[in-house]
């Protein structure tokens, strides 16, 4: 049941996106986020949607799998759509029943907001799907490098992030196992009222916390045992290098920026 949630999951592969430098992917996502907010009409959104679909194809992952793995996000999107349709007022009235009405502005807002969230989530999920946690951390560390000079603990931040990402699937597996073990002892997680259900979570949450702490302790010990002492003077087994792929990502970014800038109203 939990295996289908894949936020932060890395799917190994050799596609264009897998082999591109993590730094260019991250920078591109920042630019893409700006573009998504610059887009404000049908043409610009159509361009962005087309571009997103193309990017997914470049990753050689199935769109169905990605969409399915982001299920929790879709629930959130659906929620915002409903809120906007019901609350935002203005423009032509489509439907009226007492105080309740659906109006033009609400519908357009709902569409735009949900498109924005979906596009952003889709493209940024491609980053973790196609980049191994090691590459991701190194890219982040190199990108944030300049901030190190003003006292930001860049290496530590990057390390924390990569450990968090690394342990999402592990903790998911662990949760799955604990749920199964408690189900085998007759626990029932799907019936009863809200308070009862919250109580039913205790047999899962407590063992999960304990195992997370245990893992953290073991990891710290294992790192120390292998002589880890922070980022200063640490060398790398593999260093990141830019290639033609990153050139083409930069080119795509420029083209996209110009096109959106031109067509937006």
């Amino acid at each position, binding site marked *: 049941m939990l*295996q*289908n949630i*894949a936020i932060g999951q890395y*799917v190994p592969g050799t596609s264009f996106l897998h082999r591109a430098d993590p730094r260019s992917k991250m920078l591109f996502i920042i630019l893409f986020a700006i573009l998504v907010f610059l887009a404000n009409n049908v043409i610009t959104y159509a361009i962005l949607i087309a571009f997103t679909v193309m990017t997914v194809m470049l990753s050689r*992952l*199935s769109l*169905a*799998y990605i969409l*399915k*793995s982001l299920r929790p996000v879709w629930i959130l999107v659906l929620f915002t759509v409903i809120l906007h349709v019901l609350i935002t007022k203005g423009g032509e009235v489509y439907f009226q029943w007492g105080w309740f009405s659906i109006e033009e502005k609400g519908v357009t807002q709902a569409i735009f907001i949900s498109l924005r969230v979906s596009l952003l989530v889709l493209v940024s999920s491609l980053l973790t799907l196609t980049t191994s946690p090691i590459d991701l951390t190194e890219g982040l560390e190199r990108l944030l490098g300049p901030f190190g000079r003003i006292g930001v603990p860049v290496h530590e931040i990057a390390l924390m992030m990569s450990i968090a990402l690394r342990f999402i699937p592990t903790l998911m597996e662990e949760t799955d*196992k*604990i749920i*199964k*073990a*408690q*189900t*085998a*002892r*007759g*626990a*029932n997680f799907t019936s009863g009222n809200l308070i009862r259900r919250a109580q039913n979570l*205790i*047999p899962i949450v*407590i*063992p999960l916390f*304990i*195992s997370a702490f245990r893992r953290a302790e073991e990891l710290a010990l294992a790192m120390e045992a292998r002589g880890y002492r922070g980022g200063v003077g640490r060398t790398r087994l593999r260093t990141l290098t830019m290639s033609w792929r990153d050139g083409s990502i930069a080119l795509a970014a420029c083209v996209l920026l110009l096109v959106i800038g031109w067509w937006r109203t």
Partner: protein
Amino acid sequence: MQITFEEVSHVYGVGTPFERLALQDVSINIPSGSFVGIIGQTGSGKSTLIQHVNGLLQPTKGTIRLGDVTVTPTRKLPHESRRNIGLVFQYPEHQLFEETVAKDVAFGPLNFDMPPEMAELRVREALEIVGLDYQEMKDRSPFLLSGGQMRRVAIAGVLAMQPKVLILDEPTAGLDPAGRKAILEAIYRIHREQSLTTLLVTHSMEEAARYADRLIVMAGGKVMLEGKPDEVFAQADTLRELALDVPETVSLISQLNRKLPEEQRLPSSVYREEELISHLLARISDRGER
């Protein structure tokens, strides 16, 4: 309770890049009251197999019969049936969560709507089976116990439901030899006393040889060998191919037999350590008398 698998297959992560066939056309029949050892390398499908027995996983294909209940890809195991099938996971102490040992062991019985007084009785019995003193242990926090004690408490948590089928996934992993023996002996004792059907997943051929009256050897999601222990051990070549070994007693028998003349060979059925020792002692004293 009789357990039957008919051409059961299971696929993990259908429709994802991680799709994996974990069980392939498994057909087995486990008679009521037998003690079955399930052996195989990591990833051979043992854990997937046993999770089907208590309905935590549903087959992708095939039929499972548990007593008079049938599980198919579309028909789930009813909640009440779960009580009859106790499953002890690997490292079961990782699922402890209550404030006291007694409360944790009572979790299972209470989930199946047992009255509290009755549940307390069950807790007392279950703790005694695994060799822990009820009065001494009941109010202690399970998190302050030693590893071996935690394991026992967790196993007691399953035994307290008084299942008819007991499934154990490597119950001795990570314990010292004395702890291993104590836990396995306790399991074997209630297996006989309550005539349970017991499934023991293990890496150790020695453990399997000692307790099981049937063996199932798995590899790559398929059942490779199945039968009485001496029948399975006779297939030493196949076992070696699967990177498994015969127990030391069995290899001793075959080494001795190579030296012995035809009419004096040792029977292959005395593979249990004590039986082999007494058999050999009897022979030696026989010869002494002659």
